[in-house]
Structures are given as structure tokens and as C-alpha cells.
């Protein structure tokens, strides 16, 4: 059992090493098979581990494996060690399983690319780092995985490096997340100074004993960790890197910028939920940030033309939901939504990637249209995923996960009406933009002809994910529907249950409201984008929509507030003003030399004159002294 835990991240790393060292020499798709195989083995091991873990419940709630001692300096002792519990189990399941499907898809998607083997090397490195992140039982090891995925994100966004824009997008992503990471490492320092250990388990045990609820130190620490989570998960105010990150290949967007890495923030908060519970202010901030982000990103998604940017804003918005759930203490709901979101969002990205591939790099949905008949499989899977995203009642997994969040946002202890209103309005927006995307892309007249048919390796993952997007929700039914909640029961081994202080009977009412609103949203999308497009013509071209299109001008704000001053600072002092000191000294010396050698002009009478002046001065001084 414990051996397997170590192997799960090790095998993708091995794959990375092999591909990195020998990938250049591999012919055809061998590199792809190796990369996929490595993740596949990890996924297989995950299933084995999961089976054993479920078997061991409820006696053994977590397993730990220590590989080696990493750092030991003073009282800082850090081991490279992993621990598996329900929370990390769900995460590694999503990472390896969805990761495996995306790898498989990539074999065909990336075929023919000159850096085919590099791609799989990076992807494997990413999977390995992500597994380290979620398996870590130590804040520093977690941080290592955390930065590792950041590196892979950077490498893969900038994978097509020949376009400078891609490189800049990658850099932006890295720097934005790095800002959050720095806050996080300071939070880790604080944890170490207060607890003398970085072991997550020990910290979580000691924290309630040492820290008062709402104390300053708890608040600061939680806020710093939240900083890291915000950066990684693209939440307000560090969200603007994610839409640009779509410059990477579609499988990358699917794996890193939808399914796994961006949800690392969710994982971090869930993992350190005790700290957040000790800092109610920060927890409320999490909820508010989540609510604000989901609305802002929802409006922006509605304004986009690029299919991948729609999905990117949608991702930000959906992670906003997860943050909302975390903020109101609905831990398992957040993780549930993470899992379901991973399924349907990965599917959406893969579908979008397939469309883009077939249409020769066409990203604009207004230039697609009518693809329903030309790509039936993609259409159906895409439709399913969009429905799941929009949380179409009863038939989709998204309904179950999102409604749980909405319900808790109202009913939990720290929830409230306003959070719920934000959530439900977000749900309406989600329905609207997701079906806007579907209708514009697949209905109407065809504007671009597909140039190729996509193959099996692309379609199989789509279908599998589509099935999961429908059936995935059945692992957790709403409380009012009977007590079939295996998912949260599993998680309650790690995370506390959500306390509800409203009447449980209300849940059905709220579900009906949200179902109605989603259906209205879908209908409106149908009305606006198929039946009567002129209704929204004026809105589409309004200033407000342009503003949303630019992502609420966050980039402009950062540009003016940070980028411009820094660049200005850099430019005014490029030559390093301390050099003035050096050149100053030598210039003064040279000037002195020149002035003094002027006096030595070879004119005898000039010398005599200076004698006379000198004598006059000295005598005058002596006499008048």
C-alpha cells in the first residue's frame, strides 16, 4: 500500500526523465505512448490504492510513507513524505484518471508537432508535481509540488514558443501565481515559527490548541495561505492570467488550467481548513471573493468570442463557486464540485481543442456555426458537458454539485442570502453563456468547413468524460432526496460536515428555484442566439460588453499600477546609478588634472605671477592676522 503511494508520483517523474533525456531520438508516437503509459500506470495504482483505502476504512483514515529526510537544519526537519487520505485520494483520482484521458487525447492532438516528446515530458512532469502537491504531508513538500506545477504551467503555456505572445502569456501566468506563492511561503514560515514543524497533520492538530478563534496570528496566516490559493486558482484579484494562459495547447488547458492545477487553491484551503475555521474573517473573505469572482468571470465569459477564452472565464467562475463553498464551510461540496468540474471542463476543453484542430486553428465561435452535423460525436459530448456546466436539472452531474453549493451558501452557518443571490445569478449567467457557446458553435449556418476528421484517440476520452459528466453526480445526491451520500461520507473522514442552521425542507424549494433559473437561462440563450439574435445586437456592441470582454480591465489596472512603474523604474536606472559614484570619482580626478595642467602652460611670467599672488596672499594674511 505505502509503496504504491510513493510510486504514484514517481512513475510520471520517471516518464519525464526518460522522455526528457531520450525523447528527441524517439520516432513517431512512441513518446506519446510512454507518457500516456506512465500516467496510466499511475491511474491504475490509484485505483488499487483507492480500493485498499476504502477497504481499510473506517479504522485507518490515512496512510503515510516517508521516502527520505529532505532538510534538517536547526529545528527544521522536513521529510519527503506522502500521506494519503480521502481528500488526497479524490484529488489523485481526478489527476491520474483525467490526466490519463488527456494524455491519450494528446497523442493524436499533438501528432506531428516537432516537439512532440517535449510535450509529453512536460505533461508527465506536471502530473508528477501535481501528485506531489496533493499527496504531500508537509507544507514544504506541498510547496515543492505547488511550484513544480507552476513551472509546468509556464512551460506548457509557452509550448508554442515561436509566437512571442505565448511566451508573454506564460510569463504572466508564472508571475501572477508567484505573487501568491510568495504570500504562501510567508504563511508557511509563520506556521513553522508557531508550531515548530511543517507537518500538516501536526499543525492541524496543534492549531486549535494554540490559537484562539479569530486571533490575529491565525488571521494573518490564513490570509497568507489564501494569497497562494488565490494566485493558483485565478481568483480575484489575481485572476487575469488564466484567460491568457489559453495560449497553450488545448490538452494543457484541459489538464492544467481547468481540471487540476487551478484547483490547487481549493485543495490547499480544504487541506488547511482548520486554520481557516480559526480565522472567520478570512473564511468570509474566501466566500466573498468566490462570489465576486464567479459573477465577474460570468459576465466576461458572456462577452468572449474565442471559444477557449469563454471556457477560461467559465473556469474562473466555477472555481469561484468552489471558493464560495469553502468560504461557507461546505468543504465536501467544494471538493465534489471540483471533481465534477474536472470532468466536464476537461471535456469542454478537449472538445474545443478538437474543433479548433478540425477547423485549422479557428478560435472564434462566430466563425464556426453549424458544426452539429459535421461532428456529431463532438457535438453530443460538448452538449453534455455544457449542460453539466450550466447545471441542467436532474440529468447532469453539474446540477448535483452546484446545487449543493448554492444550498449551503444560503443555509450553512456562515452562509447568507446575498451569497446565495450571487450564486444563483451566477448560475443563470452560466446557463446563458454555456448555451450561447453551444448554439453559436453548433447551430446556425456553417461558416468554416472542417478540414479533417478526428480520430479515435480523441473521441474515446471525450465519450468517457461525457459519461462521467452525466453519471458523476450520482455519487452524491441532495440531502433531501434520501441519504445517499457516499462522497461526503468518504470526505468526512477528513473534512468536517457542514453545519446547517436553516430548515432542511427548504432545500427542495431552493433546488426548484435554481432549476427554474437555469432553464430560463437556457431558454434565453436559445432566444438570443438562435431565434432572435437582434435582441442582443445592441448589447453585444455596447461599451459595457466591451468592458466585460476585456475582463473588467483588470489588466489595464495592473498595467498602470504595477507594470508601468516597474518598467519605468527599470528604465530610468538601467545604467545603475551607483556607477555614477565610480565615474564621478574618476571624472573629478580627470577634471582636477585638466584644471591643474592648465596652470602649467609653460609661460614663465604666468608662474611668476602666481608667485607674486602667493606672496601677496601670505603677507597680507600675516599682517592682518
Amino acid at each position: 500500500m505505502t509503496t504504491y503511494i510513493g510510486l504514484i508520483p514517481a512513475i510520471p517523474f520517471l516518464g519525464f526523465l526518460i522522455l526528457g533525456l531520450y525523447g528527441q531520438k524517439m520516432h513517431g508516437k512512441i513518446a506519446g505512448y510512454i507518457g500516456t503509459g506512465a500516467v496510466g500506470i499511475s491511474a491504475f495504482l490509484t485505483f488499487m490504492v483507492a480500493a485498499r483505502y476504502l477497504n481499510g476504512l473506517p479504522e485507518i483514515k490515512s496512510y503515510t510513507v516517508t521516502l527520505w529526510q529532505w532538510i534538517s537544519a536547526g529545528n527544521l526537519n522536513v521529510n519527503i513524505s506522502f500521506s494519503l487520505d480521502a481528500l488526497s485520494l479524490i484529488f489523485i483520482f481526478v489527476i491520474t484518471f483525467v490526466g490519463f484521458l488527456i494524455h491519450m487525447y494528446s497523442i493524436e492532438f499533438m501528432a506531428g508537432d516537432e516537439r512532440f516528446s517535449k510535450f509529453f515530458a512536460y505533461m508527465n512532469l506536471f502530473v508528477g508535481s501535481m501528485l506531489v502537491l496533493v499527496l504531500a504531508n508537509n507544507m514544504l513538500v506541498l510547496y515543492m509540488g505547488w511550484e513544480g506545477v507552476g513551472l509546468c504551467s509556464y512551460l506548457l503555456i509557452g509550448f508554442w514558443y515561436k509566437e512571442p505572445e505565448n511566451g508573454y502569456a506564460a510569463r504572466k501566468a508564472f508571475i501572477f501565481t508567484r505573487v501568491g506563492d510568495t504570500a504562501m511561503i510567508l504563511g508557511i514560515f509563520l506556521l513553522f515559527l508557531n508550531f515548530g514543524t511543517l507537518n500538516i497533520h501536526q499543525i492541524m492538530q496543534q492549531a486549535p490548541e494554540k490559537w484562539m478563534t479569530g486571533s490575529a496570528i491565525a488571521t494573518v496566516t490564513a490570509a497568507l495561505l489564501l494569497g497562494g490559493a488565490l494566485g493558483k486558482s485565478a481568483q480575484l484579484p489575481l485572476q487575469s492570467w488564466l484567460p491568457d494562459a489559453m495560449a497553450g495547447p488545448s490538452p494543457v488547458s484541459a489538464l492544467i488550467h481547468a481540471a487540476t492545477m487551478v484547483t490547487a487553491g481549493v485543495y490547499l484551503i480544504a487541506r488547511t481548513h482548520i486554520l481557516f475555521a480559526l480565522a472567520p474573517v478570512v473564511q468570509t473573505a474566501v466566500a466573498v471573493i468566490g462570489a465576486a469572482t464567479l459573477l465577474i468571470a460570468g459576465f466576461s465569459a458572456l462577452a468572449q468570442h474565442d471559444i477557449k477564452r469563454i471556457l477560461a472565464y467559465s473556469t474562473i467562475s466555477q472555481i469561484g463557486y468552489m471558493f464560495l463553498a469553502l468560504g461557507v464551510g461546505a468543504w465536501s461540496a467544494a471538493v465534489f464540485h471540483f471533481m465534477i468540474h474536472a470532468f466536464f471542463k476537461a471535456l469542454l476543453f478537449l472538445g474545443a481543442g478538437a474543433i479548433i484542430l478540425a477547423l485549422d486553428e479557428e478560435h472564434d465561435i462566430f466563425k464556426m456555426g453549424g458544426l452539429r452535423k459535421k461532428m456529431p460525436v463532438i457535438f453530443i459530448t460538448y452538449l453534455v458537458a455544457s449542460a453539466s456546466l450550466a447545471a441542467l436539472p436532474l440529468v447532469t452531474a453539474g446540477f448535483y454539485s452546484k446545487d449543493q453549493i448554492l444550498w449551503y451558501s444560503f443555509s450553512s452557518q456562515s452562509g447568507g442570502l446575498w451569497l446565495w443571490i450571487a450564486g444563483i445569478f451566477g448560475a443563470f449567467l452560466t446557463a446563458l453563456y454555456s448555451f450561447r457557446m453551444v448554439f453559436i458553435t453548433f447551430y446556425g449556418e456553417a461558416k468554416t468547413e472542417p478540414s479533417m476528421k478526428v480520430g479515435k484517440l480523441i473521441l474515446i476520452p471525450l465519450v468517457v468524460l461525457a459519461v462521467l459528466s452525466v453519471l458523476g453526480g450520482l455519487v452524491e445526491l441532495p440531502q433531501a432526496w434520501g441519504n445517499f451520500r457516499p462522497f461526503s461520507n468518504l470526505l468526512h473522514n477528513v473534512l468536517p460536515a457542514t453545519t446547517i442552521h436553516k430548515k432542511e425542507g427548504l432545500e427542495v424549494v431552493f433546488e426548484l428555484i435554481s432549476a427554474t433559473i437555469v432553464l430560463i437561462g437556457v431558454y434565453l440563450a436559445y432566444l438570443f442566439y438562435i431565434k432572435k439574435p437582434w435582441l442582443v445586437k445592441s448589447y453585444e456592441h455596447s461599451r459595457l460588453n466591451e468592458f466585460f470582454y476585456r475582463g473588467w480591465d483588470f489588466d489595464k489596472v495592473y498595467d498602470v499600477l504595477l507594470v508601468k512603474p516597474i518598467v519605468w523604474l527599470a528604465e530610468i536606472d538601467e545604467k545603475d546609478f551607483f556607477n555614477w559614484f565610480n565615474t564621478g570619482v574618476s571624472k573629478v580626478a580627470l577634471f582636477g588634472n585638466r584644471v591643474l595642467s592648465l596652470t602649467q602652460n609653460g609661460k614663465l611670467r604666468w608662474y611668476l605671477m602666481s608667485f607674486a599672488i602667493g606672496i601677496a596672499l601670505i603677507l597680507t594674511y600675516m599682517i592682518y592676522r
Partner: protein
Amino acid sequence: MLTVPLKILLLFAGTLFLLGLAGLLVRRNIIFMLMSIEIMLNSAGLVFIAAGRHWGQPDGQVMFIFILAVAAVEVSIGLALILQVYHHYKTLDVDAISKLRDHN
């Protein structure tokens, strides 16, 4: 017996000295400069004599003799140099002979 106060004598010698100095500063012709130097040397000797007389010591006169010797040597060397300079540069302008200048 001369009863002019020593102060007057000193002023007289000083005046001569300053005249020599002024001549040195004003003239560009080397011969005139050499002459001015002679005037200055002479006035210095005058002070020695006056002082020696005032104190009743022979040293002032001894010094005058030394000054005389120095002046003689200086003039002979100086004039020889002037001859050479004139042969070389065909001028007696002291400003034209500025080889002592620092070349930078």
C-alpha cells in the same frame, strides 16, 4: 653721519624690490627680465647693508658680497642662455619659449 631712520631705508629697498618685481611681470623680453632680477637682488643687498649698519654687525656686508657673487654668476649664465635661446628660437620672447608646458 646719516640719520635717516631704518624704516625709510627699508621702504626704499622695498620700493626698489617691488619695481624689480613689476618689471619682471611686465616685460616679455628676457633681457629685461634679467635686469629686473638684478634690481631685486640689489635691493635685497641694500637691506642687508642697512640692517648690518643698524645692528653694528659685519654680517650684512658679508651677505652683500655673497649676493654679489650670486648675481654675477646668475648674469653670466643667464646671458649665455639668452644667447643660445636667441640662436635657437630667433626671439627673446619668453612666452614663445614654453617648452615647460605639460602636454595633455
